[in-house]
């Protein structure tokens, strides 16, 4: 149940908007943030695994930008821990198979395998943080609208918006079903496959009925296959220029972080 509550909580937080009232207007440009995030990810992933120091410098972007938009880096760091299990599952084999020495600390040999393992974790967490930051600043609906302007098929963007809208409704319905089951199962937590099939089937039938009602309602309101998008309150000219300057500074910094010589401490 807590998994569902967490998911509903995340969706509600998204609705309220991750970026707070302190987010400057120039920092909230969706297109600029999408571009900066994409370039950040490309350059971050192009850093060799043995270059751990360089990867660490890339943390500057989520740290600085999170405080500029008022999200708080601690929150983003906590949420990015979610990616750890799959990364550890695949990366943990590196120390086991790559024993070549990378450096020695007080007589203890640290292998290249351990170094690359740490690098994989840093890469994974930083890239997750960049995405969490992007969605926290811009919101999912705005990103979908921008995707439409980038010529991504209308069918996909329309149903992405619909899916996002109905996710919390269905999760709420599922929560009600599970609560009803929990009240009647005398503490049994495990769910047999047959029971799971019946419950999922019930949820499926309710979903289909709901889809048909939604379709009728959409047709009644003149739906022609494309979700209408309201025009945003808009950024003024000066905000647009600031957004461009900000993006250019970030991109220049990423390029410098990627190719500048390593610093000796």
């Amino acid at each position, binding site marked *: 149940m807590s998994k*569902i509550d967490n*998911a509903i909580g995340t969706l509600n937080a998204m609705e309220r908007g991750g970026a707070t009232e*302190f987010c400057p207007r120039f920092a909230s440009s969706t297109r600029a943030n999408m571009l900066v995030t994409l370039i950040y*990810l*490309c350059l971050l*992933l*192009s850093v060799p*695994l043995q270059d*751990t*120091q360089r990867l*660490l*410098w890339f943390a*500057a972007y989520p*740290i600085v930008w999170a405080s500029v938009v*008022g999200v708080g*880096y*601690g929150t983003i760091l906590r949420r*990015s821990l*979610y*990616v750890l299990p799959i*990364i550890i599952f*695949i*990366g943990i084999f*590196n120390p*086991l198979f790559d024993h070549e020495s990378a*450096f*020695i600390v007080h007589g203890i040999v*640290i292998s290249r395998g351990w170094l690359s393992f740490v690098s994989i974790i840093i*890469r*994974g967490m930083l*890239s*997750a943080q960049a995405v969490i930051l992007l*969605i926290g600043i811009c919101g999912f609906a705005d990103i979908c609208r921008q995707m439409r302007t980038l010529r991504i*098929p209308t069918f996909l963007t*329309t*149903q*992405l918006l*619909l*899916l996002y*809208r*109905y*996710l919390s409704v269905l*999760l709420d319905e599922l929560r009600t079903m599970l609560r009803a089951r929990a009240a009647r199962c005398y503490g049994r937590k495990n*769910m047999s*496959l047959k029971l*799971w*099939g019946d419950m*999922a*089937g019930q*949820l*499926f*039938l309710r*979903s*289909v009925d709901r*889809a048909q009602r939604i*379709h009728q309602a*959409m047709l009644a309101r003149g739906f022609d296959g494309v979700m209408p998008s309201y025009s945003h309150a808009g950024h003024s000219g000066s905000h647009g220029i600031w957004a461009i300057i900000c993006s250019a500074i970030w991109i220049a910094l990423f390029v410098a972080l990627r190719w500048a010589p*390593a610093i*000796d*401490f």
Partner: protein
Amino acid sequence: MHMSDGLISTPVAAVAAVAAATLIAISGAKVKQSTRSDLVPLTAVLGAFIFAAQMVNFSIPGTGSSGHIIGGILLSAFLGPWAAFLALSSVLIIQCLIFADGGLLALGCNIINMAAMSCLVAYPLVFCPIIRKNASVGRLLCASILSCTVALEAGAIMVVAETKLSGVTALPFSRFLLLMTAIHLAIGIGEGLATGAVLAFVRRTRPTLLSHEESMTRTSKGAIIALAIAAVAIGGGLSFAASSDPDGLEWSIEKTAGTNELPTTGTAATTAQKLQSSTAAMPDYDHTLSGIIGATISMLALWGICSLLAHKRAVLTKTHQNGK
């Protein structure tokens, strides 16, 4: 099976993204041709259904463990492979963007591994040939188990290939493949049983909702052609991405100087090096370790400064608002 950005390289991500985008464009075009006017809301709501169903774990018989559904075959059986592919891609996009489950650059890989392998490979090639009109529950279950197993195994093989091509893991290819396929065999059987259970329930209560009985023969040909194109694109793209040749800058330096690492010469450079050595906080440490420690301390300091500034700004803004 959601791959994180940390597990792939940029070229592999780019090739997979192009392949996924191509498949999405083809699926979009195919779905547009459909005569069903309710397909858009149905696909979206069933995508949300799959997302919700993934939240509930079921016990895997005989193992004592539990698992959750992925839903590619289940969606394909109700919507047909193209719309199901789009629905599952949407679920993956939302999981990536909102729940940080799977990386943004790895999104193409995840769409290929999970959505394409189940909806466009296993469904037309395994599920549809087995299932027939008015098939028995046993046949339905058998088709579900086989197709889900094939889908997950194909996805697992793709994960291994993408990770190895990205040069991320030191695990030998054969052992990595064995590990992943063995794990996903068990998951595939569980997924198949769960899919079969839902399909059997819906067929018992509302049989008209199952689309596969009419559409299976029409969809397989198109899916196979699309997959052949995607396979050629991925194969060609990945072989390019896996090139071990030096990059443009390294190539130019190597051609000019005979080596791709230039020695430091000149008084300015030597003085700078000496200055750097004298100011180095950890001169006795290896460059790699001192670099890592230095960068970590710098980032922690940056975090502290940024947090302080953000806090000060928040206090100032609140004071300003209260003053108004």
